[in-house]
């Protein structure tokens, strides 16, 4: 029983990691209907920025963190301006390919600049564990869970309660109508990319003590976070976190109870099953058009 609870807790922690990255996917999708395959690589780049500020320039952890978030927000806007805006409104396939290309580019450039070694950031959460009875949970994982919950709540509030959030939902639903209503759609899209890059950076920095930073970390985690976002039904912010936690728990349970090899496959099997039964994910909004 204790094993089960311990696996469950570590699965939830792992799942929050995926959820945190998946949040970035969902944000961009929710506001622009664009699937950003470079999301994991934005996360990786955020981690490297933080490493540069904290590890190389010796800044305070929190200042370095904030600096990395700000720098990445700007970078997100730049990426949107250069790669996405010219093709916004063309078939989704081309945008997916463009972001895949962007991902390739970022990975190689990061490898050239920061080398191919695993980098580590010293964080206030690096050491120590929380003991609850015989349960053990490391602080760095707790920090990820807490950050995921906070960011998820903030983003949900932002999307549903603020004017800018409403504008974002409007521009994704019907861009032309949003223009007519006086929403500055281009600026809205810019802002959403900035936010999603910032969220990705938070993920990158918080993951640094757990997964380390290397140029392929974004690809590896992105491939897990992507099913998480789909499982939750791409357009839903709480769905992303729930999907992430589900994937994380499945993975850690499969790793513990099933023979070797199932750990990597189980999340995808579950994903395929869910897609078969509910093609729009668990929390997906899908209104069928009547003809």
């Amino acid at each position, binding site marked *: 029983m204790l094993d089960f609870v311990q696996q469950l807790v570590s699965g939830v922690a792992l799942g929050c990691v995926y959820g945190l990255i998946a949040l970035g996917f969902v944000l961009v999708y929710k506001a622009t209907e664009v699937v950003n395959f470079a999301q994991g690589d934005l996360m990786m780049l955020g981690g490297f920025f933080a490493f540069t500020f904290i590890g190389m320039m010796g800044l305070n952890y929190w200042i370095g963190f904030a600096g990395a978030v700000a720098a990445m927000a700007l970078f997100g806007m730049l990426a949107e301006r250069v790669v996405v805006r010219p093709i916004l409104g063309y078939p989704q396939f*081309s945008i997916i390919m463009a972001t895949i290309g962007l991902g390739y580019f970022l990975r190689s450039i990061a490898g050239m600049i920061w080398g191919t070694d695993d980098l580590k950031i010293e964080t206030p959460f690096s050491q120590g564990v929380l003991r609850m009875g015989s349960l053990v949970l490391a602080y760095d994982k707790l920090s990820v869970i807490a950050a995921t919950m906070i960011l998820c709540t903030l983003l949900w509030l932002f999307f549903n309660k603020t004017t800018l959030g409403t504008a974002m939902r409007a521009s*994704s*639903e019907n861009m*032309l109508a949003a223009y007519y209503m006086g929403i500055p759609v281009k600026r809205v899209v810019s802002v959403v990319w900035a936010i999603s890059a910032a969220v990705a950076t938070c993920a990158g920095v918080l993951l640094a003590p757990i997964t380390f930073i290397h140029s392929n970390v974004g690809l590896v985690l992105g491939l897990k976070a992507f099913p998480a976002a789909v499982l939750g039904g791409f357009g839903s912010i709480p769905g992303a976190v729930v999907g992430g936690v589900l994937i994380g728990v499945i993975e850690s349970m499969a790793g513990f109870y099933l023979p070797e*090899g199932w750990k990597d496959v189980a999340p995808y099997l579950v994903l395929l099953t869910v897609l078969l039964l509910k*093609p729009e994910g668990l929390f997906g909004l899908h209104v069928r058009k009547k003809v």
Partner: protein
Amino acid sequence: MRFLFKTDYEDDIKLFPHSGYLVTYGVLLALLLIAPHVLSSYLMSQLVFVCIYAIVGVALLILTGFTGQASLGHAAFLAIGAYTAAYLQKYNVPFPVYFLAAGALTGLIGALVGFPALRLTGIYLVIATISFALIVEEILARWESVTHGNEGMRVKTLSLLGVTVPRDSPTFYYLCLAVLVLTIVGTLNLLRSPTGRAFVAIRDSETAARSMGVNVALYKVKSFAISAAITGFAGVLFAHKLSFISPEMFTLQLSIEFIIVILIGGTFSLHGAVLGAIFIVMIDPFLTYLKDDMPGIIAGIAATFGAGPATAGSIQSSVAAFASLNGLKGAIYGIIIVLFVLFEPLGLYGRWLKIKLFFQLFPLYKRATFKRQKIYVKSERNR
């Protein structure tokens, strides 16, 4: 400029709309047939890879280009084809049998993947095919009694009708070329048949196709099966060419490469698959060439423009250092994809059409002819 008068449907679906086509393709085929006697063995080997990639490109075009179903899982179909060949070979099954068996098995699996894909569109389909590919990759690594796991499998030399065909012999090249030509002709015929028309109708509008009486589910599954089967055939050739296969060859990276093939070549015509394959396969030798020769050339240019020998030397060494940077290839890949999506969405074949039209209409060419129509994003969720 030539005007084609079409008086009936038969004229519209001719394989060769006018005699010019016969001449061009005849010359091309003749050139390809004498290639082994002219080109170096390294280039011949690359040409075999061009054939294999082009076969997969054609397969992917049927599914993505003409039926409108995106797939990032074609490396898995290639793997299934390759492993079927390698496995059956152990039991001394003759080449034609395992070649067809590989195609049949991948086609069957493709149809099985097609069924769940029926309800999925857009991004959900992409993730479903990625999941399928990752699962296949894991199965290949774990099912050791059949696939030998991560150790990989050795593929014996191809023997066709009692004659052994080494993987770098001209005969093997002719075999790949023959499969490619048959695939292309078969696909062209498929596309002008009612099935092909149904594919295109589904791509353009599923609702409209359904209301015209097209059985959307049936044709989607058909498209998946045909595309997978052709990829399976390519897999057999791929296995023989490499003579050794292991699970880590068939990763998501390879699936993405196949998508890049049709993206760069052009998704609206079979020419695109071939042009894209040439591009993808030849980019490696080209980058090696850049790495080896560019520093000297640039230094030479600098010297002719009056740079002293010391400056030229330092330019040469810095260019060489840049060219040998790790990951330069990935960066160039990325830039190429982005540039193509942004500036040449019709691909290399689209560029060729533009150039052709420019000369045909000489002073009257208008850039707007090929301009994409900008649409405004509307939620897919409400579609």
